[in-house]
């Protein structure tokens, strides 16, 4: 698991399963946020991805930590909307960075998240402050990088990332969207948290050892 400072295949799978579970439980609330700030389809886009993720994960071999992220990636890339492909590419960078390793450490995780967020920014063109998932991805990545530099243990680092992601997501309430469908509603969405960013927080909060703490 993560006790020895490494994320192994089982831990990665547990993380992904936990995320799928909590995201599914929250999709109604997330859809409601998109109804208030975007075009309202976030919930159904998410559901499509998660349903497919369950199917994909059912045939996993459990060989590497990369695998469940790769399967999640495929599931999200199979979905329409803006969030699906961006999450899909983000998860893809995780799996690519992990490669064939049987277990990965904090350095690899920090590098993976940084690569994923860079890809999301390149493809979506959003920067921090645009009221998108990037507002949660970037601080989470920064927290991991800082923890890695400080030599922190993996569980601690994940907790820090989760807190940073949640704070970033909460902060989107005060922003006006400049990317995605939410940008068309402008001021109306001020005060509404960005569902894409919340989902990122849910992901890090589902990491092994985070919510257990």
């Amino acid at each position, binding site marked *: 698991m993560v006790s020895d400072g490494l994320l192994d295949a089982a831990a990665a799978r547990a993380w992904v399963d936990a995320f799928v579970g909590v995201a599914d439980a929250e999709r109604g609330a997330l859809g409601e946020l998109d109804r208030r700030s975007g075009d309202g389809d976030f919930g159904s886009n998410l559901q499509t991805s998660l349903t497919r993720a369950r199917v994909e994960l059912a045939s996993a071999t459990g060989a590497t930590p990369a695998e469940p992220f790769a399967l999640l990636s*495929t599931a999200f*890339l*199979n*979905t*329409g*909307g*803006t969030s*699906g*492909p*961006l999450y*899909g*590419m983000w998860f893809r960078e995780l799996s690519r960075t992990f490669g064939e390793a049987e277990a990965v450490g904090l350095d690899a995780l920090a590098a993976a998240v940084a690569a994923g967020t860079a890809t999301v920014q390149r*493809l*979506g063109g959003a920067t921090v402050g645009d009221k998108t998932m990037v507002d949660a991805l970037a601080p989470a990545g920064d927290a991991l990088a800082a923890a890695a530099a400080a030599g922190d243990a993996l569980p601690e680092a994940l907790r820090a990332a989760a807190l940073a992601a949640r704070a970033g997501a909460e902060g989107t309430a005060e922003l006006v969207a400049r990317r*995605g469908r939410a940008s068309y509603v402008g001021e109306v969405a001020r005060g509404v948290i960005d569902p894409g960013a919340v989902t990122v927080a849910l992901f890090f909060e589902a990491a092994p050892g985070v919510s257990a703490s």
Partner: protein
Amino acid sequence: MRRQFINDPQEHVREALDGFERTYPHLVRWNREPSYVARATPPAQPKVALVAGGGSGHEPLHAGFVGSGMLDAAVPGAIFSSPTAIQLEAATRAADSGRGVLHVIKNYTGDVMNFGIAAELVSADGIEVERVLVADDLATDAPEGTGPGRRGTAAVLVVEKACGAAAERGASLQEVAALGRRIADNARTMAMALASCAHPGESEPSFELGPDEVELGVGIHGERGVARVPFGTAAQLVPQLVDPVVEALGLTRGDEVIAIVNGLGATHPLELSVVFRETALLLEEAGITIARQLVGPYVTALDMAGVSITLVRADAELVELWDAPVRTAALTW
């Protein structure tokens, strides 16, 4: 009130694709999962492959243009929304015959992103991809960098036709892409609607017009246009489409164009012919020659009543590529 021949709205596009494959079994093959339409018979020689795609509801675009001399694959999304990256990836892989793949993309955020992702996914395996971004809709023209830019509409047909011909003749990926970009740069479109469209399974049109109103600058998704102008005769309405396009392209006496008078769905052939006649008379007067023309419902917005007019600056090379043989469901010569 609008009603359609439909079963489950969720299955409408897939059932239609099944029906389309049954209609043109000699031309196309529908890959069910992930969903894309490919040629029934792959090209005999390796060639640059052309893949286009986008939301459904615009038929015959794009599946109607799959076949020799035009597209190798078309990737349909749900009604009015981008196909997924996985669909585009699979179609791109299937279409590639080793000489690379050209993505013909109508300029919409979702399409651009998903095509981009697909390119990234396949390039990991050494498949070379170039893209042509078609952004011809004048109604959404705005200064560079202030938004997503002009939408892509019927000019995509000219790109697909000419690039398809060039690819068939063995041009390289870079050559085909450069050709496509040159065409897209020289193409502009303007549209108007006399009535909006309704989504499959919905009875209400996406916007309502008064008896004396025409929606100017509509796109192909039932979205509102940029202005409402008074209804009038064809002779009064058509110049409001042709004039801005002529101006935007800087066309002057002696220039040649390819003209597309495109029905948005419910506009009858008699009307389209009348609109084309008005277009021809206007251009004749301006000393602009229509070298080639296409008149019909090629890029629709479901059952919208309206037309778009596209002009593409033409030269001998483009006309020659336009005239090259093509064999698809919607275009054959």
